[in-house]
């Protein structure tokens, strides 16, 4: 767990990541709050708060007496949200660091293309 942010947010992000990665497909049941708490060794109320965040956002939904399930369309919605955040979280800091080192935007693009080629080969 990252110490600087509330745990419940981190729980919500973990579940989101699993949905995006496909480990938790839509319409499948997610582990119960108590299972999360025991597995991650955190307070069940905190785990419940994280799950609650996703229920509010419509990513998870509750089937009475059964448990929590991944909502239909959840993955696409999460992907769209994450793409919006990608610019702020990754591209902006990348360009700021590049400017500090005197690397132009064009060089950055070239670097990205080269790195991509290396990874592909």
């Amino acid at each position, binding site marked *: 767990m990252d110490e600087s942010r*509330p745990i*419940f947010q981190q729980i919500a992000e973990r579940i989101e990541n699993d949905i995006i990665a496909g480990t938790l497909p839509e319409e499948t049941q997610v582990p119960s709050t*108590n299972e999360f*708490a*025991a597995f991650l*060794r955190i*307070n069940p109320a*905190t785990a419940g708060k994280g799950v609650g965040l996703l229920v509010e956002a419509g990513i998870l939904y509750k089937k009475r007496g059964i448990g929590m399930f991944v909502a239909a369309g959840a993955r696409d919605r999460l992907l769209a949200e994450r793409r919006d955040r990608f610019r702020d979280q990754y591209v902006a800091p990348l360009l700021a660091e590049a400017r500090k080192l005197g690397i132009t935007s064009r060089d950055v693009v070239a670097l990205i293309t080269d790195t991509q080629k290396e990874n592909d080969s």
Partner: protein
Amino acid sequence: MTAVVEVRDLTKHYGKVHAVDGVSFQLEENRITGLLGRNGAGKTTLMSLLTAQEFASSGSIEVFGASPLENAAVLQQLCFIKESQKYPDDFKVKHVLRTAPWFFPHWDQRFADRLVTEFRLPLDGRMKKISRGQFSAVGVVVGLASRAPLTFFDEPYLGLDAVARQLFYDRLLEDYAEHPRTVVLSTHLIDEVSDLLEHVLVIDSGKLLVDSAADELRGSAATVVGGREAVDRFVGTREVLHRDGIGGLASVTVAGLDDAERAAARSAGLELGQVSLQQLVVRLTSGTATDFTEELSA
């Protein structure tokens, strides 16, 4: 949410020493609360007052809506696991476990048996002779198996090895999830338990410094590291919890930064460091930053 404990302006002094000094707070039902503070801060005195093992000098205490003093209906709902529990001279481990159900109406014998096996307790060992770790483990078993609606653990881990402490935390979480109850955990090993806590009370020199949700305390402070001038410019008039420096470098811990402020710090070329709950408590109770609580509650 209902409060199971309500304390108003509670004070306990021994002669001139104010062990607990004008403390007011509530404990909400079915939460795990951490009671944190240095040695001699007043943690044990506070728990002794709540469990009617000490008389208050002034102020009021309500536990389950009534004064706990000489109140059997309230007291049988409580379990207080003390670091220095006294037992009759010839008591063996099995005697402790056999008498415990007399005091705790919610006692679960099967759970107790399982814990005894897991903690590898010698049933025929005398309480006076067994190791400090085993002595602590007996307390942990009684505290968990009592399933008391309000359970206090006062530094229950003395002498317990890392494996046994983890076992305690795991069983506590597991059983709490199935049988929710109010738990107060007094501890020095803050990093070990910080993820288990839902609420945190920090007490220092008998006074309550922090009464806050654990998640609110996370990220409520950050360390800013960089060139001295840049750090000073960023810190400005902010509340400083702690300051370190070497040569032209400065490292300053400040209260609550929001996302925009974090971004501003980064673009000013400063590095941001995390402050764990343990570091926060250390900085709050090391005697330099008593004003910080106002900052937190603001």
